[in-house]
């Protein structure tokens, strides 16, 4: 079975092609350049490089978020349209779970993948590897980092932090979680598109028409509007 995996959830672009469990091609770039001009050329090029036609793809796995709103929409739109046109299954994967895959050598420790969500907030969740399965311990959420670290600290377990944005938060993590915090070395802090594909194997296919990104955050205008409605109700 040929699997196409797509991660466009930040400026880091990752595309992978797998034949069952075997990786046959990967394209990754980490430059801060517009995602929109790079994603489809990368898919086109990768298919060409491995001598595969688009219609030979049997399944599409896409990082569904959290991440940059525009970025995850691009990935999800490509995945939905290709899956619909080819009439093949589409599988969504939490970008955080794909990142947590990097903690495979830390069995039975709490894995904490996170992305900077600005204003001292992060997108994060807690995962654990055990018996060859990567399971969610605390659901993905958009949370203030300080509150999140305090919550994690009370678990009383070793915490493996994984994030491309680790440096911005390293001191905060140390000051709250102290010696519970473990920081793996640099290469493990990126979302590997192959891991997107492998996590996809643990998930069920989605309905193509109703499949949407997992933003984990309301649009600003909607939040404001709801607050105004709330205020009106209170009056």
């Amino acid at each position: 079975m040929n699997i196409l995996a797509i991660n466009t959830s930040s400026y880091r672009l990752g595309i992978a092609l797998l034949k069952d469990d075997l990786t046959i091609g990967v394209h990754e770039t980490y430059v801060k350049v517009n995602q929109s001009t790079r994603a489809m050329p990368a898919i086109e090029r990768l298919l060409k490089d491995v001598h595969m036609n688009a219609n030979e793809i049997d399944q599409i796995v896409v990082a569904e978020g959290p991440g940059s709103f525009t970025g995850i929409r691009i990935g999800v739109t490509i995945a939905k349209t290709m899956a619909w046109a080819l009439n093949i299954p589409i599988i969504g994967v939490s970008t955080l779970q794909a990142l947590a895959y990097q903690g495979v050598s830390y069995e039975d420790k709490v894995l904490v993948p996170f992305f900077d969500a600005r204003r001292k907030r992060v997108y994060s969740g807690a995962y654990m590897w055990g018996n060859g399965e990567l399971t969610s311990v605390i659901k993905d959420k958009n949370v203030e980092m300080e509150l999140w670290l305090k919550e994690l600290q009370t678990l009383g377990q070793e915490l493996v932090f994984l994030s491309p944005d680790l440096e911005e938060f390293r001191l905060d993590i140390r000051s709250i979680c102290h010696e519970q915090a473990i920081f793996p070395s640099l290469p493990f802090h990126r979302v590997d598109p192959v891991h997107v594909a492998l996590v996809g194997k643990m998930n069920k296919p989605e309905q193509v028409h109703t499949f949407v990104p997992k933003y984990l955050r309301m649009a600003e205008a909607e939040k404001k509007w709801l607050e105004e409605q709330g205020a009106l109700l209170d009056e």
Partner: protein
Amino acid sequence: MGAFNMKKEHIILGIETSCDETAVAIVKNGKEIIANVVSSQIESHKRFGGVVPEIASRHHVEQITVVIEEAMSQSKLSWVDIDAIAVTEGPGLVGALLIGMHAAKALALVNNKPLIGVHHIAGHIYANRLESEFEFPLLALIVSGGHTELVIMKAHGEYDVIGSTRDDAAGEAFDKVARMLNLPYPGGPHIDRLASESDATIDFPRAWLEEDSYDFSFSGLKSSVINYIHNATQRGEDIQKEKIAASFQASVVEVLVEKTYKAAQEYNVKDVIVAGGVAANNGLRSSLEERFKNSEQKLHIPPLHLCTDNAAMIAAAGSISYEQGKFASMNLNARPSLRLSSK
């Protein structure tokens, strides 16, 4: 992309997501609509009093494959019958444009079809060709929420912009005045309706600009309307919405009609076409018809469903690029402030 054979008879699938409509259509030879599906988000944006870009983008992702499927099933065609995929590349809301663009690229890649980028305004112009064939030279008046332009065309795909707005677009002015009068969003149709119930008795200014200019300006008019309402309120007078709407609309329409008429004479055009959402305005339609009644030029105003954003117009404009072999590659980008030009 030299690998594609162009055919004389051809069928283009068009995609449009530049604002708040998710639209897909299938058009034969640039003239004949085979399928035309528009999913409007307007109900969702009403509560915010205007289109919210982030929410528009979210809705496009929800709708895109549904709308493509609906267009394909309406057409009763299969992918072998489709010769190219055309998509709006700009101008518009960037996040919204990107959804249509990536759906178009995915369809082009999977089905091995050429990809065509279309200028949204070229689309509005070509909506008219779905009704009747163009005769060049041609003058197009484009009036919408984002645009007020006069364009001369001497041949297919060649655009010479001779005038454009220096501040607000005509449709924008309608929406802003509607908001001042506490009319619901979108305000244009409400102004139009109220205007029909009164005479234009308030003397709002007409911005003619320089003698030889085909440019437009509506911000001064907008300020006059604000001042008028403000002063009336200060004096404790009743705001007569009908009178204000009629007088405001008369000012916009007179400038649009006179500049269009003057340009039509100066450039000695055969066809005058009107395009864009404001072309649905009854005051504008009837004044144009009146002005061009005894003139040499043929006036074309598309039916209402082709004035507002749709994808049939994108497919129709894409048809010209197809015939001229102008194809895009997979790195086609959404261009929010793309200018109309011959390329």
